[in-house]
């Protein structure tokens, strides 16, 4: 069986939807973070697949994927730091316990 662009796009879309579902339903901040990472990686798969199948001469897609990986890593670092701070102050990482701010 030959892998085509379609296969990769379906994989990317499936990964994106799984991540979307997880981000909207997870109750733990770490779980939401992992789901968001899935969505970023779905985009990376798309970028690499488009580059390989549609524009084999160029490197734009691969470069973009590298940028996305780097920026996502920076984002996760900040996110984990925030989770750590809130855990120190209120000993919870579940979003339903974040209820000081409302109105």
């Amino acid at each position, binding site marked *: 069986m030959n892998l085509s662009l379609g296969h990769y*796009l379906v994989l*990317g879309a499936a990964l*994106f939807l799984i*991540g979307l579902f997880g*981000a909207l339903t997870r109750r733990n*901040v770490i779980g*939401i*973070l992992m789901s*968001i990472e899935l*969505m*970023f990686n*779905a*985009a*990376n798969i*798309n*970028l690499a697949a*488009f*580059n390989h199948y*549609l*524009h084999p001469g*160029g490197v*734009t*897609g691969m*470069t*973009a994927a590298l*940028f*996305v990986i780097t*920026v996502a890593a*920076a*984002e996760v670092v*900040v*996110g984990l*730091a*925030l*989770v750590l*701070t*809130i855990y120190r*102050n*209120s000993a919870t990482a579940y*979003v339903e316990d*974040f209820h*000081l*701010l*409302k*109105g």
Partner: protein
Amino acid sequence: MQNLGLLAPEIALSLLGLGLMLADILAPAKSSKLLYHFAWVAAAVALALIARGLSVSGGLPLPVSGGLWVVDPMSQFFKLAVLLSVIMTVMLCLEYGQLPPAQAGTFCALLIFSTVGMMLLVSATDMLLVFVALELISISSFVLTGFERRNRKSNEGAIKYFLFGAFSSAIMVYGISLYYGATGTTRLVDPQSAGLWLPALQTKSPVFTLAMLFILLGFGFKAAMAPMHFWVPDAYEGAPLPVAAFLSVAPKIATIGVLARVYMVLVPAASLGFTTLLALLAMLTMTVGNTVALFQDNVKRLLAYSSIAQAGYILIGIVAGTALGIQGVLLYSLVYVAMNLGAFAVVQAVGDNGSRDGLGSYELAAFDGLAQRSLSLALFMTAFLLSLAGLPPLAGFIGKFYLFAAALSAGRSASGGISPAVFYGLAVVGVLNSVVSVYYYMKIAYHMFFLPANSGKGERLPSKDGGPLPAALHAGPYLYGCLAVALAGVLYFGIYPDPLIANVQLSVPHLP
């Protein structure tokens, strides 16, 4: 390489940000105020550099570089507005008591990095640069929001902001990957001629439309458009007040700037069939912001919802998509910086009061009898609120007038299958919303002028009788400086808007 000079303000500010982080380690905590002064002077220098660049070019088309970013009067206008807001924010920080002095350098550096991100964002003509610039803004803002590390509200605001921000970035990146698939590049302009480049074939393809929709959603989160606005009140209430003031202004107008560039100039919304969608988003944004603001008891939250509604007004100009619309967007963005930062400055004077005990309150009750405690602050606040509500002769009126006029003129010349009713409806909804907004803006004025003063510190309404009158409220010189700049802008552009209008009109013909 010869174009690198055009990036000089951004490069200088980035280096300065790194320097500030180093200075944070080297400088003793008691000289932390010095770092704030350093930061605002640097922003002022960058502002002067950009203003000089504009006057040297004398309105001629500025050079455009390779296709990754563009320097034109519109981008420079937004950069000036962003730098003005960062200068005013640092002024507020100088008077704000809750920031840890030991981390002043880090705080300033993050503020500066965020500003650099906005300056790149309004110049970007490449999706990858748009993404990186947006992330530079967002990641700095997450940390700034959570900067009061011991304050659980600050933690909570930051984590909510972070989750929504990361989620929207992920959606946007997926959109960018589809954009790359549909066009074979991440550029928004033609790489060869560096001019306008509409991939006519791709605009019809569903993948391209889907990509632009996802990217619009990503922008929508950052500009706090209505169905994606849930993070705004929580992030603003949790954030240190100067940061809330900054977030309500600078990232919002920078996102509006890139939204205008992408969806009005490079890939017009009408060519994608997005006009009705954008119009619905604008109506929803205005209505949700104004309606929920009616029921707020916390002034920070009230201003948060008001800033959502204000973004809705600016969207009217983007929906109109005409030259008049662009002018309205530019005009209102600058005016919005002055009036919103001014209002937040008064809220800081009342709620923070320079004390380090954190007893200040941002409840509406804290504004009771402000006129007795400090008449000047109450008058300042009234001017900003009237301008936000859009009453003449203040600057907010001119801005709104332009935006609604843009919608009406777009309705008159509507073509290409878009019903003129969309534009007329937009103008009507905008005017009705302005009327509604007068109620909650004036509610603050009512509390300031017609209710007896209380301690201003209680969470609940204290007893109305007895007890000594609360002490007069004093604000520091920098806060008054910030207020004076804001009021000058609101009054000057309200009474004599001609120079501003001339500048705004100048920037329209040079768009690619």
